[in-house]
């Protein structure tokens, strides 16, 4: 988001009443900010600090936890759960790429080709949001069930033999395999990719397409040299909005995967809510946060769209 400020009110050095009014006006933004910012500081920023301190505590539930600067928790957590970390990054990255590949044509269709169907298509993209996404994720259990239409078709086409050889499915089924989890992640975060893509595509002047055509650019060239570069802000925003929640997700892995597809979110959830090992849960989520912030920063720098933030 770009930040351009409205010009500050001019304050001529005139009567004291005016000066007082000006001073009052200068205080207005702070009053406006106070409650919301306080809320974020207390319930968003302070917890992160608490989390950092919890991650270096030792103790037990019975005796309580104390800060002992026990950094070994980080080393232990990483060495024990690095497979889940790597899996989260791999699944989230795959889902993000799939979202981009699947979402781009739909965003393009809505922006340039839909005509009077545009609003209807937009509604169809957004409406699933309003059915609880847990219910929709459970629907994938039906769609991908072992004796369902999808699996039997894929089997008769021998697709599952190929994916099985690649290691993304197992034993001629889709549920409880990496394919099912990635499929669920892709489905769940697809609208987060489509909406920013659509926003940036819609801003493109269609006359640019005509101009490219007039200059004898083939449609593919027009897309490569004109449309795609101009949609980059949408691509960057969409990939971030997809990758970040996907990397921390544990719902798809829990509902559609098996124990072999657990992601880092599953580990944090079970450490926190079931094992009640708060230091390990805190260390893991701190690592996840740091890793994602680092990746996002590098990505935003690289893609040269810093005005996004």
């Amino acid at each position, binding site marked *: 988001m770009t930040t351009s400020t409205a010009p500050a009110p001019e304050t001529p050095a005139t009567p004291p009443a005016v000066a007082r009014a000006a001073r009052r006006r200068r205080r207005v933004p702070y009053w406006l900010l106070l409650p919301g910012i306080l809320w974020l500081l207390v319930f968003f920023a302070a917890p992160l600090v*608490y989390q950092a301190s919890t991650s270096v505590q030792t103790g037990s539930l019975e005796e309580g936890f104390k800060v002992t600067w026990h950094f070994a928790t980080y080393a232990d957590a990483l060495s024990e759960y690095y497979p889940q970390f790597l899996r989260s990054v791999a699944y989230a990255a795959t889902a993000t790429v799939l979202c981009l590949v699947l979402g781009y044509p739909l965003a393009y269709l809505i922006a340039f080709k839909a005509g009077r169907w545009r609003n209807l298509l937009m509604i169809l993209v957004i409406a699933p949001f309003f059915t609880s996404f847990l219910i929709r994720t459970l629907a994938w259990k039906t769609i991908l069930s072992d004796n369902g239409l999808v699996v039997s078709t894929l089997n008769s086409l021998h697709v599952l033999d190929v994916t099985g050889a690649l290691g993304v499915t197992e034993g001629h089924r889709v549920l409880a395999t990496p394919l099912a989890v990635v499929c669920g992640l892709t489905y769940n975060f697809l609208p987060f990719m489509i909406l920013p893509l659509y926003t940036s595509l819609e801003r493109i002047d269609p006359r640019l397409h005509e101009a490219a055509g007039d200059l004898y650019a083939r449609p593919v060239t027009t897309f490569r040299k004109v449309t795609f570069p101009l949609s980059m802000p949408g691509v960057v925003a969409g990939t971030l909005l997809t990758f970040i929640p996907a990397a921390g*997700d544990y719902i798809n892995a829990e509902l559609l995967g098996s124990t072999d597809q657990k992601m880092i979110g599953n580990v944090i959830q079970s450490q926190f809510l079931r094992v009640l090992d708060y230091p390990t849960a805190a260390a893991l989520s701190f690592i996840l946060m740091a890793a994602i912030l680092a990746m996002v920063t590098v990505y935003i720098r690289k893609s040269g769209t810093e005005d996004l933030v």
Partner: protein
Amino acid sequence: MSALRRLRRNFVVLAGLGTLAYLVLPNVIVTVFSFNKPNGRFNYEWQRFSTDAWTDPCGVADLCGSLSLSLRIAVWATIGATVLGTMIAFALARYRFRARSAVSTLIFLPMAMPEVVMAASLATLFLNMGISFGFWTILIAHVMFCLSFVVTAVKARVMSMDPRLEQAAQDLYATPLQTFLRVTLPIAAPGIAAGALLSFALSFDDFIITNFNAGSTVTFPMFVWGAAQRGTPVQINVIGTAMFAIAVLCVLVGQLVGRRKRRS
């Protein structure tokens, strides 16, 4: 040349519609299976047609209780986040002040953070403070993560508004309050409405943050999560279908009203 172009145009349309099918398919399944009569506890395989669940949507223990709790939390979280977020958005869009970039960063960070991180850290705070989990902790958490989305939606709208309109109102001897109520607020309203709608949807559907901060309180998504382990009643699909229908209906009505307004 023209054959190639036609092929490409068809490719985009076909691929786009394919993606749309992928997006809508689960909703179709949810709707169809709301008319199922499953044999076991799980509603994953089609058995036979029945309207039992539709005639008795609250027939499962705790289901409608969790639904009404989710609605109440969503309403209060929407009100809280919309009021606080709109105030911040006006400050950011209309005033110059110190620590501006720090404020912007603080607004942006919750949107760039995996939910599970916010969820675990907020729950850590509540645990450390000895605050018992329940309605209030859920509400606090929901206002927290909805706030940034409201700020973003409202700020975009206020910034695109012509500041001369307010100056004109003041030239016509409107008091600051009148200017705000008669000029500023009506123009900002669509942004505020968008932020509120988004807050409601996010809060109502939130699972991860609620999972960590609810204690033994059961919201609707928590109920579905539990059901996925114990057995999924058909009533879940009924509620899912009804929500989908209501949402589509609201959007369609809104569009019709908007079109009529524009015409008149």
